[in-house]
């Protein structure tokens, strides 16, 4: 009976964690989510200008890619930025 209660408490803790995830730091969709939502990747093609994109920088501030127009820009891609 005691084991049953212990297991129940563990599962309840997992359930609370599941509900809490969107509010937690690791659950916040950060830069990656913004990139996925706001960069129309279907329009990215070799030889074509990169489409306009408003992103969020590592400090959480909005960042407009157009502000780099006229500069040389190196874009790098990483897997799962917010993991």
């Amino acid at each position: 009976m005691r084991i049953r209660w212990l297991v129940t408490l563990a599962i309840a803790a997992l359930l609370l964690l599941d509900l809490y995830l969107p509010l937690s730091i690791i659950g916040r969709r950060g830069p990656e989510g913004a990139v996925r939502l706001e960069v129309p990747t279907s329009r990215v093609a070799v030889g074509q200008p990169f489409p306009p994109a408003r992103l969020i920088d590592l400090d959480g501030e909005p960042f407009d890619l157009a502000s780099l127009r006229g500069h040389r820009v190196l874009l790098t891609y990483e897997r799962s930025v917010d993991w």
Partner: protein
Amino acid sequence: MAYRILCGASGLVMLLLGVGAFVSFFLYHGPGSAGAGPLPIGPGGAYYLGALGCALVAWGGALVGAARRPAAAPWLASVTALALVMNAVVRMVAWVVGDYAYLGDVLRVEAAVFLMLSLAFIWLKPRPVETARSA
């Protein structure tokens, strides 16, 4: 009685999902399909989906059997609850990892359902006395 309904309902769902996953492998590789499908799973994903379907058929069949004779498999509720918790943990981690962002909150909802189902299996499973009496 509640335990039998729980086993029967979840077992039937697993059987149906298992058959669906099994068939999806053949649909993915069927003539003319060109690997098209509602989910971006790729050939590797289709392979694992087919294998998952086979396992779900076994799991669902065991649960349906337990619904008919709960005393025949008293351990089934515990291992089912454990597997459901493991499934929930996988979904919670998958939700955090950005690769599954296209699924949205489906993963978290599924995890919550699995955790509540596991609690139901733990609390509704026959006690040893009931099992011995009905055996």
